[in-house]
């Protein structure tokens, strides 16, 4: 495209650059052709940037706008804007901070606004670059860098009108020469790195058309390419050439806040993906606003995911960058080396794997080289687009906000809504910019390099920060765009027809004028209402940085610093001839293009869905917006994940829209009978009753389940747990007492009654045969070593068990030497001997207590190995030495005893004695080892008896009784036999009772079904 020519957006014919009106159709060329063709392209881009930025910056807001419009159509869309705005706002701050675009773009809305103002002033060549860099930077910094391009690309794709594109796209093509100029880049990039091969097979027409459009502007931008790095591909160099404009002082002004952008414009442009570079390069300084226009137009049609990218500002996540970069790089593969930033040069996924949109990208990138993007290649819609851009007056057309609904009333109300939303944010500025509405003419601003527009945007940016920055951005673009009535969609035509021509010659303008009138009428009343309407919750509060940012920009300072861009568009729409229609035309058609055209609306690739889920509510907003823009587009088109993000109940109350649409009919006063004359009242009431935005989501079943579980857990945690009733010991004590009483009674009765038992004392006990024989064999000269190895507690049992044996031995004159490894043993031994003999035995003749053997098992070994006198030098009676005992011969060892009689209650002691002493005792074959054990130790000592290691053993009361019976001298054991037998039976009875109770409990217990 030759820069000298300006293509009329209306008729598509080229006009000399200096012409302000198409010489063929008379359409106005000026606003958009201010900078020649370049300017025209930028104009388109300006639009794009506007609405793109708006989408980007506050997709929620934008979506809110669109949603508001959509609200007119469907209630679902009401919900989208606000919460999405919040969500978007949440994400933005990070990104905005990074780009540090002029506004300081601190927070959400500012993000776009901050940049847009820059871009706009960049009407100069440099600024244009800066602009591209700015928003690219912002994107990059926010991780959206690559998204932006996609957004930009997208708009173009949406353009094809004849291919079934929506009307707005056709309008774009007609009204925005810049769109035509854009494809010019690809023309230059015929040498561009975008190879045909990279074009995905699924490349859509619109992409091709976009590429074709991109070609045109390139030549105009060529001068800028000088600033680009040599490494850049041709098309990029083209871009830089074009964007050389951006390096103009104006751009520097803009860049001041966004220094990084200024510092590395080239890099940024490069980083910003090739096509983006193309995009930005094509935009001349004058075209900046046009670029924004383009952005707006492009953004609007952006698919949800793109919108989300632009809106959801994320830190430059590698993933996002990668994906985006791949999306863009794929086509630009050859230019990978050119891309300095690794982000963009990251390995590109194979085109087969790339999602549709990526393939579309590739297709775009490929297309240009394959098809030099000449006008011939450009699709019809693009031609129309070019024609439209060539036509003067179209620039102003888009001044009106994007009203989706064709119905005039609806659009008005929607706009009112939009205004109403913006108003609260701009409440402070309202008066000022309202005052400046008339004097400011967008056309002039554009012609003057759009300082005013920038200023307006910059001003509006803070305001939009709360509501819809996208609108603010788009508004100037609208103002710039000439209202091409011919391109207007039907509904716009209706608008035009319905709107009086008073305000503007162009029908759309008139349309805008009508709603503006209403708006103006409502303004005074609205201001208060607006403030009330804009609660901090729903709309992001203005951040100081945002307000300051516009002030920083010199361009803004020059013009009307506080004039919001959208108001500027209003101005243009009201004062100039072509205000709104273009905007309407552009935006509205784009919606269907966006929602339907983007394959991501439903099927998002995983990584994109991750993006969306990762916190770019803007996606949802954009999706919602797109959906709303579509005529009859149902929310069903929203991706599931977007729908999931949408609050179920967060929406502008349905009544609001209903009221808006219904319009109150005045019933009294001079206005009686007029309908909707005093919209302010409605606004006031509506805004006051504005929604309580709930954050309800539509969780999945699983989420609900998990939430319920969590809630249950939390409730359980918080609920005071009833302490387990402290078990009272009463039942246990009672039971114990009962059992004890029963047992004691069972034992006392035989004792009292001298009960002899149910059966006679057994004559034989296990192992007792050998024991009786061994004991009875012992006679007078024999000396028996008696080991008293029982505790005091077992003394009663052991006494009963051993008393008969000891008495038998004593009666037969067997001498006894008693030892014990138990400290209490000597005393117990004495106690036992005293009972055996009926007196203390004579240690010299009868029995001597050798005392305590310390050391346990060791002393047993010592006893087995050493002479007894060495083991125990003195008897238990210290005054008597062992050596002096007559029946213990000096140097006598263990084997000199006739027998060892172990009286023990402990199997361990018995085992120790057997282990240590039996081998030594075996040296005397006539010696025997006898054991009197407690009943509890018998089971563990029986093996020794069974193995004949011990010669005999009796145990317990029964053993003692048995021995007494054997020797026919019943004694104490026999007396207790009855009680003992009864006590044993009691235990058996209790076991039986326990079994019966258990059985009854089992029978009576309600059976629990299995699995119950």
């Amino acid at each position, binding site marked *: 495209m030759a820069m000298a020519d300006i293509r009329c957006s209306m008729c598509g014919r080229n006009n000399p650059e200096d012409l302000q009106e198409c010489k063929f159709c008379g359409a106005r060329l000026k606003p958009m052709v201010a900078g020649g063709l370049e300017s025209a392209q930028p104009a388109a881009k300006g639009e794009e940037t506007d609405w793109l930025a708006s989408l980007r910056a506050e997709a929620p807001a934008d979506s809110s706008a669109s949603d508001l419009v959509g609200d007119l159509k469907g209630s679902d869309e009401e919900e989208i804007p606000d919460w999405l705005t919040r969500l978007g706002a949440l994400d933005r701050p990070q990104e905005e901070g990074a780009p540090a675009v002029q506004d300081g773009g601190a927070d959400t809305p500012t993000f776009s606004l901050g940049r847009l103002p820059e871009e706009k002033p960049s009407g100069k060549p440099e600024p244009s670059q800066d602009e591209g860099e700015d928003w690219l930077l912002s994107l990059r910094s926010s991780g959206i860098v690559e998204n932006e391009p996609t957004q930009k690309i997208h708009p173009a794709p949406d353009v094809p009108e004849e291919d079934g594109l929506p009307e707005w796209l056709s309008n774009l093509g007609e009204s925005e020469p810049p769109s035509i100029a854009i494809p010019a880049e690809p023309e230059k990039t015929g040498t561009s790195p975008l190879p045909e091969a990279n074009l995905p097979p699924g490349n859509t027409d619109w992409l091709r058309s976009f590429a074709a459009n991109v070609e045109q502007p390139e030549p105009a931008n060529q001068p800028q390419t000088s600033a680009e790095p040599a490494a850049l591909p041709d098309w990029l160099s083209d871009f830089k050439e074009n964007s050389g404009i951006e390096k103009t002082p104006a751009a520097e002004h803009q860049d001041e806040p966004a220094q990084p952008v200024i510092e590395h414009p080239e890099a940024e442009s490069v980083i910003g993906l090739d096509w983006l570079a193309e995009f930005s390069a094509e935009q001349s300084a004058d075209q900046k606003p046009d670029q924004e226009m383009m952005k707006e137009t492009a953004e609007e049609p952006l698919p949800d995911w793109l919108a989300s990218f632009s809106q959801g500002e994320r830190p430059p996540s590698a993933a996002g960058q990668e994906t985006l970069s791949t999306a863009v790089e794929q086509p630009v593969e050859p230019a990978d080396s050119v891309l300095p930033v690794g982000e963009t040069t990251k390995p590109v996924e194979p085109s087969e794997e790339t999602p549709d949109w990526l393939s579309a990208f590739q297709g775009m990138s490929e297309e240009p080289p394959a098809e030099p993007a000449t006008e011939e290649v450009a699709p019809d819609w693009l031609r129309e687009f070019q024609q439209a851009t060539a036509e003067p007056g179209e620039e102003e057309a888009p001044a009106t906000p994007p009203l989706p609904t064709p119905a005039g009333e609806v659009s008005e109300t929607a706009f009112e809504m939009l205004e109403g939303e913006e108003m609260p944010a701009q409440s402070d500025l309202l008066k000022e910019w309202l005052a400046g509405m008339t004097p400011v003419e967008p056309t002039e601003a554009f012609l003057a390099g759009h300082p005013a527009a920038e200023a307006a945007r910059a001003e509006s940016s803070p305001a939009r920060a709360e509501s819809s920055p996208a609108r603010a951005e788009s508004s100037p673009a609208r103002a710039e765009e000439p209202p091409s009535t011919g391109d207007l969609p039907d509904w716009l035509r209706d608008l035009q027809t319905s709107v009086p021509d008073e305000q503007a010659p162009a029908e759309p303008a008139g349309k805008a004028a009508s709603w503006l009138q209403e708006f103006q009428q409502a303004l005074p009343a609205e201001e208060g209402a607006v403030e009330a309407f804009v609660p901090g919750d729903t709309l992001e509060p203005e951040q100081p940085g945002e307000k300051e940012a516009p002030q920083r920009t010199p361009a803004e300072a020059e013009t009307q610093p506080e004039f919001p861009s959208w108001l500027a568009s209003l101005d243009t729409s009201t004062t100039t001839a072509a205000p709104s229609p273009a905007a309407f035309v552009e935006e509205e058609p784009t919606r269907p293009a966006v929602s339907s055209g983007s394959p991501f609306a439903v099927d998002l690739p995983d990584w994109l869905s991750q993006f969306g889920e990762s916190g770019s509510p803007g996606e949802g907003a954009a999706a919602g917006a797109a959906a709303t823009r579509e005529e009859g587009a149902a929310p069903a088109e929203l991706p599931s994940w977007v729908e999931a993000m949408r609050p179920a109940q967060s929406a502008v109350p349905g009544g609001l829209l209903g009221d808006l649409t219904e319009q109150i009919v005045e019933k009294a006063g001079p206005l009686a009978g007029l309908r909707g004359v005093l919209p302010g009242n409605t606004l006031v009431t509506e805004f006051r009753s504005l929604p309580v935005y709930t954050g309800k989501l539509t969780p999945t079943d699983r989420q609900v389940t998990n939430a319920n579980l969590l809630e249950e857990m939390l409730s359980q945690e918080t609920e005071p747990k009833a302490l387990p009733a402290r078990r009272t010991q009463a039942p246990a004590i009672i039971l114990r007492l009962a059992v004890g009483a029963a047992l*004691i009674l069972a*034992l006392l009765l035989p004792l009292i009654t001298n009960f002899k038992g149910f059966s006679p004392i057994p004559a034989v006990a296990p192992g007792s045969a050998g024991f009786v024989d061994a004991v009875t064999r012992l006679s007078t000269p024999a000396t028996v070593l008696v080991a008293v190895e029982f505790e005091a507690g077992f003394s*009663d049992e052991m006494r009963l068990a051993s008393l008969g044996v000891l008495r038998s031995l004593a009666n037969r004159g067997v001498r006894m030497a008693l030892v014990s490894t138990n400290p209490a043993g000597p005393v117990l031994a004495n106690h036992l001997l005293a009972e055996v003999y009926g007196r203390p035995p004579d240690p010299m003749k009868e029995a001597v207590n050798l005392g*305590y053997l310390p050391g346990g098992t060791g002393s047993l070994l010592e006893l087995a190995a050493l002479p007894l006198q060495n083991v125990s030098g003195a008897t238990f009676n210290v005054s008597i030495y062992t050596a002096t005992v007559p029946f213990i011969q000096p140097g006598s060892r263990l084997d000199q005893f006739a027998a060892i009689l172990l009286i023990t209650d402990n199997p361990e002691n018995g085992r120790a004695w057997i*282990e240590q002493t039996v081998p030594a005792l075996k040296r005397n074959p006539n010696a025997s080892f006898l054991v009197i054990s407690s*009943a509890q130790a018998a*089971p563990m000592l029986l093996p020794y008896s069974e*193995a004949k290691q011990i010669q005999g053993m009796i145990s*317990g009361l029964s053993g003692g009784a048995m021995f007494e019976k054997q020797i026919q001298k019943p004694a104490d054991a026999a007396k207790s036999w009855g009680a*003992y037998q009864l006590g044993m039976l009691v235990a058996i009875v209790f076991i039986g009772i326990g079994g019966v109770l258990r059985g009854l409990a089992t029978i009576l217990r309600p059976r629990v079904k299995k699995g119950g």
Partner: protein
Amino acid sequence: MAEMIWLLVGFILTLLIFSYLLGDNPLFRLGTYLLVGVTAGYSAALVIDQVILKRLVVPLLIGPWDKQLLAVVPLLLGLLLFSKLSPSFARLGNLPVAYMVGVGAAVAVGGAVTGTIFGQVSSSIQSLTFGNGILALIQAVIVLLGAVSTLVYFQFSARRNGQEVSRPRLVEWIAKVGQVFIGITLGAVFAGVYASALTTLIQRLEFLMNVILELI
């Protein structure tokens, strides 16, 4: 009179301990603490008399020089052993403890081998003879089977097959048999313990009756 007092003391102490049937109570605790105190006091005095005096002091003072010399070693080791009472010097007591542990280990090993293992194994083998009749042989086989299976039951070595730790099926089967024998043995032990306790209870009740009869 003194005998009567001591009977009353025993009677009262018996009642104090029987009060445990009502649950843990101060009377019961009083009786148990008193028992521990008396036992400890008596044991301490007994050790001093039977060990320190008889085994250390007397040999050092009275015995021949060789015994005096030999008595020095346990005296020194004993002094080191008392360092265990102080945490600061407790490590000094490790040497006498090591000495006792060494002797104890040797005694345990020797006793286990010569007293139990050889004795029981040889008995099990010797009992497998027809000399005592078929019934005795069957009994010997059962006892041998029971002993072996019980030992197998206590053999916990197993192989790990993936997540499952299991023993060979044959070993498992034998262990099951051993479990039965162990159950029988423990049942007999339970009955023996009960018999011992019952006998003691009978004696205590008889003691109480006698004291009451004495008092009456």
